[in-house]
């Protein structure tokens, strides 16, 4: 490790209602790979976006190569030599590799673009990285791993001194990761400062020199990778004070029947051989880090995405679910994490949304039976305690929590016994959160069975009777609430996959 090339000191960043970064400090040395770790929402990406000028910091200083700097956009950061390789690749599929690398700063020959020179320069870059990619190949023909290497080549072509990798391995195969590591080691040898964001504990041990851990927008600490264990890092990641009491014991009767059984479900890379059971009256928490495949699993069960294989049993009977329509017929309701896109029709009234999934019941002849629709939606507005001036209110005018209640009403009207809540309290304020929790508990008491996908550890521990943990498309553990702890769950969520 060489001298310090980049120091971020006491960085503060506020978003409306959130203190996203609270006096965070971070440094990178020349010739080191510095891991940045933390749970979802710990502030890793925000910190890197502040660094590269995507966000403006509210206070604090950034010192780069001995001088205080503030980049106003990625372009400024790039020309200074600070580049980020995003998780989602910013590539133009229809252009060639070289055209992508030099986009926005093409070599020119008169008015024409000098593609020949661009190809030569791209070739030189690849040679420097010891990778074999044809610069004239069309980008969309490359594998994700190769595309990422093009992004790295693009980063280096800016004369980068600090490169940030944001979860670079998430979409790569084992061999591609090997190649990536080879390149990263090369870059380290060339005295670049490298920031490596990842959830994969085994990679951290293999490739990084130091680890900085963040939690809830604060800096927790920095360790030398060689000197620490996985448990040290996990303890730093989860050592948060839990305000709400976690659930003490399962509320499910010992002899509660299995209502949903999923066996060996496969659906793409994100759902591999997932099996679990859901009991009557149970809240089954699905925990895991971003990209663990929880939403994908839910969508596959619900028939929203195609399944490759696997069986689903409802009340002991094998069922075939090929579309959401089939799932709804089986009594499964899905409350999407993205309410506005998949959950409700915001420009329609509470009443219209309530009967959306059940409309055929409320049709008399050719017309919708408005009276019956009003009655049933009023019933659920009352029983769920939805705060709306009337059932004729447009849903767009309701708060997030009350919108969520309308979605719940929609599935209850439909008589769904199995409800999948995907991030049920995302974008909902604290008070309304408690109401949703109460409501979910009440639903479970009434004999509904609930799958709750949540990225909030406190929510998982507070609501679940049992917890399924996933990591990279595989189920990596299952634990009853009595034995569950943050450490145990995080350990399973970051399980090393070999």
């Amino acid at each position, binding site marked *: 490790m060489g001298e310090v090339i980049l120091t971020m000191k006491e960085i503060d960043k506020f978003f409306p209602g959130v203190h996203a970064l609270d006096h965070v400090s971070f440094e990178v040395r020349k010739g080191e790979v510095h891991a940045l770790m933390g749970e979802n929402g710990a502030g890793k990406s925000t910190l890197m976006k502040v660094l590269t000028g995507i966000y403006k910091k509210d206070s604090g200083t950034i010192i780069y190569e001995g001088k205080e700097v503030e980049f106003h*956009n*990625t*372009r400024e950061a*790039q020309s200074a030599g600070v580049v980020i390789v995003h998780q989602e*690749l*910013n*590539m*133009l*599929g*229809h*252009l060639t590799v070289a*055209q992508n690398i030099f*986009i*926005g700063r*093409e070599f020119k020959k008169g*008015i*024409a*673009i000098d*593609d020949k020179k661009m190809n030569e320069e791209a070739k030189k870059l690849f040679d420097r990285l010891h990778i074999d990619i*044809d610069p004239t*190949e*069309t980008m*969309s*023909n*490359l*594998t*994700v*791993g*190769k595309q990422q290497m093009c992004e790295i080549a693009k980063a280096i072509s800016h004369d980068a001194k600090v490169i940030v990798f944001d979860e670079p391995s998430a*979409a790569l*195969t084992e061999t591609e990761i090997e190649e990536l590591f080879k390149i990263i080691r090369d870059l380290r040898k060339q005295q670049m400062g490298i920031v490596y964001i990842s959830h994969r504990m085994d990679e951290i041990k293999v490739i990084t020199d130091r680890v900085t851990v963040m939690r809830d927008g604060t800096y927790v600490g920095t360790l030398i990778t060689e000197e620490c264990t996985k448990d040290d890092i996990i303890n730093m990641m989860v050592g948060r004070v839990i305000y709400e009491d976690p659930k003490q014991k399962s509320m499910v009767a010992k002899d509660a029947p299995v209502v949903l059984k999923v066996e060996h479900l496969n659906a*793409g*890379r994100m759902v591999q051989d997932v099996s679990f059971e859901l009991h009557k009256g149970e809240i089954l928490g699905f925990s895991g880090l971003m990209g663990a495949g929880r939403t994908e699993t839910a969508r596959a069960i619900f028939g929203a995405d195609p399944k490759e294989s696997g069986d689903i049993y409802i009340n002991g009977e094998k069922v075939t679910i090929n579309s959401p329509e089939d799932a709804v017929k089986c009594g499964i309701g899905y409350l999407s994490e993205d309410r506005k896109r998949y959950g409700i029709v915001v420009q329609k009234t509470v009443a219209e949304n309530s009967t959306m999934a059940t409309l055929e019941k409320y049709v008399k002849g050719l017309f919708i039976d408005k009276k019956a629709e009003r009655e049933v939606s009023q019933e659920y507005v009352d029983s769920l305690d939805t705060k709306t001036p009337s059932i004729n209110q447009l849903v767009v005018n309701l708060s997030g929590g009350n919108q969520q209640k309308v979605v719940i009403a929609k599935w209850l009207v439909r008589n769904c016994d199995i409800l999948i809540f995907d991030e049920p309290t995302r974008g909902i304020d604290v008070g309304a959160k408690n109401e949703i929790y109460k409501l979910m508990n009440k639903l479970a008491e009434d004999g509904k069975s609930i799958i709750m996908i949540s990225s909030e550890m406190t929510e998982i521990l507070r609501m679940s009777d049992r917890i399924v943990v996933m990591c990279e498309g595989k189920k990596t553990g299952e634990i009853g609430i009595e034995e569950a702890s943050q450490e145990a769950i995080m350990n399973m969520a970051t399980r090393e996959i070999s």
Partner: protein
Amino acid sequence: MSKNSVPNTQNKSVISRLGGQKFIVLLVVVGLIIFFSAVSPDFRKYSTAMSILDYSYYIALMAIGVTFPLITGGVDLSIGTGLICYSLTGGFLIVQKGWPVWAGMLMALLLSIVIGLLNGVLVSIMNLPPFLATLCTCMITRGLGSIFSNRLGISWPTSGTPGSWFRNIFKITVNGTKIPLGFLWVLLLVAVMAFVLNHTKIGRYTIAIGSNKEATILSGINVKFYHIMAYVISGLFAGLAAIAYSAVFSTVQPGTGAGFELEAIGGAIIGGVSASGGVGSVGGSLIGVFVICLLKTGLPYIGLQANWQQIITGLVLIGAVLVDIMKKKKEKI
């Protein structure tokens, strides 16, 4: 792009497939010529070839231009009624106001650029969906054309009269034989615009916008400017098409022109422009236009009326779009 791995076995295949589609469409053109010639002796006449070419100029020019907004993932519906509007404006100035022909042409081109600019601003700066923005300018140009011409048809100077020299630009008679000079200009413009599309920043960024607009913005490119340029090019070529139309046909009627754009857009898509942007070539668009022109002119020779030509063109278009969708699916796996 899907995040799943793309098999890396089909090196260069997209390029070859692009060239492939162009090649296949060219075969279709040759096949159509052979078929019509075989079935109808009248089709084999020189005059038939001349009339096909006469019909093709303005559609081809529109297709060259509209290729650019199509590649950005947009569309320009205003080129058809725009063509008539520019032609009426130029003709009005020449015939009624006594302007020299070159000045009338210049005004027509100028107006076409202004409308193209308007389209570009609506789409790029005001963020209107291209379909709606250009549908509005389509209606506006139709109205404007009628106002300029006082709702009367206008004839640009006819052959033999002073100022009819511009008609020779497209068709010149040497020793009693008509030479389709216009075809040469069309080919020349295709070459120029193919160069612009493939070897200049305007073209490169047109493809980039259609490929992934967000990523293009993040690359620090002035996307608004290049997005507008695509519509300006489309407008300008509608202006050039207006001149071709005025030169080939004797009278221009206000209120017409709606539907021309569909032939141009259809030609471009048959020629391999992707309906969702990012892919396309100027040469392909030209070949696609000839499929449409051949159907239009050829089908009456085998006893099928104009209505059939529309139905068959529609079916051919569905085929072209399906090919595009299938290609995309292949890329995604």
